[in-house]
């Protein structure tokens, strides 16, 4: 979706406000809880990582722009869990007591498994999928697509010409995975010159490297 979350290249956002490495990692107690809930929900498989990102980027644009990142996470969590039928608006606003969960899910993450599960992570590579359309060294163009759903092809790379630098192999396609299908395909690292992306406002000799899937790209004809 062409949302405000897709920020690469936008103007007017102001200077970057630095933080020291030893500053607190969380800036309020509720941030800790939101961070932890978001991770604890993972192993229940009630929603996948791409559905979760797509839920965040659907926050009302004016609110997205004026929220802290953990507020965006909270909004996304409530949205996706509501859509999945896990929680309801009535339960969130207190007009309804907590109802039993009727959707199927994996067991909850027990405290003693936190380090094991988080140290293991997930796997996004797959053995089977779409045959690679492109080869390393090939020149490609970011497709001019504007899907209403989730996409990891940033606006700033659409219609732009780059070079395939690496083929990372078959991966779950995030754009599809956010909407219920894995559609596994090759993931590539694609290099775009700064001048190709930003014209005269770019810097000759500088490059931007973006990880893009097969369906994000087209051959130059």
């Amino acid at each position, binding site marked *: 979706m062409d949302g405000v*979350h*897709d*920020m*690469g*290249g*936008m*103007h007017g*956002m*102001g*200077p*970057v*406000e630095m933080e020291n*490495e030893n500053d607190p*990692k969380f*800036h*309020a107690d509720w*941030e*800790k*809880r939101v*961070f*932890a*809930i978001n*991770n*604890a929900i993972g192993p229940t498989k009630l929603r996948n990582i791409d559905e979760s*990102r797509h839920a*965040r*980027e659907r926050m009302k644009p004016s609110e997205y*722009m004026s929220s*802290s*990142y953990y*507020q965006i996470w*909270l909004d996304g969590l409530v949205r996706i869990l509501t859509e999945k039928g896990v*929680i309801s608006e009535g339960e*969130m606003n207190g007009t309804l007591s*907590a109802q*039993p*969960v009727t959707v199927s899910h994996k067991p*909850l*993450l027990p*405290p003693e498994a*936190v380090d094991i599960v*988080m*140290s293991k*992570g997930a*796997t*996004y590579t797959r053995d089977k999928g779409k045959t690679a359309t492109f080869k390393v060294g090939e020149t490609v163009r970011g497709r001019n697509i504007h899907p209403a759903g989730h996409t990891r092809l*940033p606006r*700033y790379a659409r219609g732009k010409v780059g070079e395939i630098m690496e083929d*990372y192999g078959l*991966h779950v396609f995030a754009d599809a995975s956010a909407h219920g299908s894995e559609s596994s395909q090759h*993931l590539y*690292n694609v290099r775009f010159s*700064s001048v190709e992306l*930003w014209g005269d406002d*770019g810097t000759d000799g*500088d490059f931007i*490297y*973006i*990880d*893009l899937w097969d369906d994000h790209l087209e051959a130059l004809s």
Partner: protein
Amino acid sequence: MGHNHKHSEPLSDTALRAKTLESLLVEKGLVDPATLDALVDRYENKVGPRNGAAVIARAWCDPDYKARLLADASAAIAELGYSGAQGEELLAKENSDSIHNVVVCTLCSCYPWPVLGLPPVWYKSAPYRSRVVREPRKVLQEFGTDIASDVEVRVWDSTAETRYLVIPQRPKGTEGMSEDALADLVSRDSMIGVTRALDVSDAGAR
């Protein structure tokens, strides 16, 4: 977000809503409060940029390790005991006299947790995400990092599950220093690529 929002808004609706969500999920048997405590403890106290600093210091001291880190960063980092969520497919990018690397996630907040922990607020903020792909040299300058015009800047936009770790250049005058002492020179920001590693005289300033 536009103004980074380092400090949270009044306790407010957000804190209440977070509490409501937690209570609801606990009551539904989907979340254990002790699990939440363990997750916070892990990322507040155990997993952070000192992990990445140990990796970089090892790479500076051991050319074979650096070769492994560049060839398969996930495996090389696992040698030191770091692995997992938001770092399943790690790639290391080495700075040199002619190349400077810097990492961003323009679409959300992707960041290599096993080696750097959780991202600072600015990394997830609109100013950094919008600007660093278009004017990296200017953004780096604001971090106090001047990049000479004959050095190539490479910006890595983390749009998939691949995660990038910058190997900063080893500072001059550090020959013979121990790995532990070298790790103190490797700041979080130098592994994102917005700064260089610290000089020996600045080590306390991290």
